[in-house]
């Protein structure tokens, strides 16, 4: 596959915060290939979430273009009644809109439109199993720990077998071992199914599982030249170079 799966070209976005207009993203560009596991590192409130949302087509950017699998995501996001692209999976964080919903029903929700609900449930069970969370099928959101919630949300995001999975801070609020677990799962998914994974992380060690790392700071995205053999060293360029 020559063409990158996801391509952002000079994307800019501003927000009104209180009385000020803040430039959150300043002509950010990057590309993601199928099967690639990429991480974006940046301080809190650096705009990582905004970048991910624009990449997923949840909201439109002010200028620039976002292309996913050849399709223009910006005009898609601007359309009335737009919905999430069928081949993009977005890891949610808030939990189901009905607090008393069982997790299996919630994971199956994206499939209820095209499929019969028995079929939808079967696929949902499979997704939960893949992430090692099938014992949570009958549980309710409030009964779950943070780690369990994270796993269920990942299952929900991959149930439609998307080409691209986007996760915003998937390790938030997790202990060390739990983080390892989640990140391994994500890497396995990327390598086993050929799904591209794009995640945002606040901390460097989380980045270390991924193939590619980028840093977002002051609205600018910086990509390193290559990864060295040492796990805790990542090289950042002065100019541009090839990725690892």
């Amino acid at each position, binding site marked *: 596959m020559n063409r990158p799966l996801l391509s952002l070209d000079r994307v800019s976005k501003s927000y009104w*915060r*209180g*009385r*000020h207009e803040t430039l959150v993203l300043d002509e950010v560009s990057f590309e993601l290939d199928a099967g690639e596991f990429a991480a974006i590192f940046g*301080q*809190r*409130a*650096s705009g990582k979430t905004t970048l991910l949302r624009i990449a997923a087509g949840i909201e439109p950017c002010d200028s620039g273009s976002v292309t996913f699998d050849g399709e223009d995501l910006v005009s898609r996001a601007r359309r009335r009644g737009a919905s999430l692209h069928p081949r993009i999976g977005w890891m949610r964080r808030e939990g189901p809109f009905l607090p008393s919903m069982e997790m299996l029903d919630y994971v199956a929700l994206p499939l209820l439109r095209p499929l019969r609900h028995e079929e939808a449930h079967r696929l949902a069970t499979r997704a939960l199993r893949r992430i090692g969370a099938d014992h949570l099928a009958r549980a309710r959101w409030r009964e779950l*720990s*943070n780690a369990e919630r994270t796993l269920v949300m990942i299952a929900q995001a991959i149930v439609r077998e998307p080409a691209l999975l986007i996760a915003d801070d998937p390790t938030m*609020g997790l*202990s*060390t071992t739990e983080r390892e677990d989640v990140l391994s799962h994500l890497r396995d998914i990327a390598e086993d199914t050929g799904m591209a994974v794009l995640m945002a992380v606040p*901390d*460097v*060690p989380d980045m270390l599982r991924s193939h590619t790392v980028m840093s977002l700071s002051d609205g600018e995205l910086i990509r390193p*030249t290559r990864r*060295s053999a040492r796990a*805790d*060293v*990542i*090289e*950042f*360029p*002065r100019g541009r*170079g090839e990725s690892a």
Partner: protein
Amino acid sequence: MLDVRALVKHYPTAGGEPVRAVDGVSFEVRAGELVAIYGPSGSGKSTLLMLVAAVMRPDSGEILVGGHEISRLGDRDAARYRLHEVGFVSQTFHLISGLSAIDNAIVKLVGSGMRPKHAQQRITPLLARLGVDSQAERAPSELSMGEQQRIAIAKALSTNPSLLLADEPTGNLDTRRSRAVLALLSEVCREQGTAGVLVTHDPEALGYVDRAYTLRDGRLGEHRPDDTHLPLLPTLEQT
């Protein structure tokens, strides 16, 4: 100022072992000190805060604030205690959007019986100290996150409380602002002689507190380095 002794709180679960949220916790915070409590998110830390704020009663143990036992207060007394002796700061601000910033800040003062006019005069220096006095008449929706947070802090400190309890106060803020807020909390505690308890995940806080603990499985222990992630600054190898 704050003396917690052998505090125990268990939650019953559907079938089986009760959850030991707080299982024999003892610690002390002196006036002017700020301590941090880390730990896996969920039960334990929030419960501890709730107990200290007299929102809940412990199964056993004591909580002494300024020498007074507060763990078994009735509803009315607990409310009064929270009004006068406790300042609470959290991630979500719950400011009333129909009131101006300064009116939000004086809610506790007015609640304790002060006339709004006096309350406004009383709080203005504090707002100035926090750098938000110029925004006093604005609606909360017109303020940035950081400014709203500072209004909330002003509200918490308005009654000169003995205790300052903070629940993830920097959760929504970027690093620069987090540091600012943490510095503020630390300074204010010292200045006012308030005892501060800070529940957090944020490793930044370590630089601003006098002591740090970790709450694990309901027990309080000294904070260890791998309980949080010390920021590993990437080594830059220029090419």
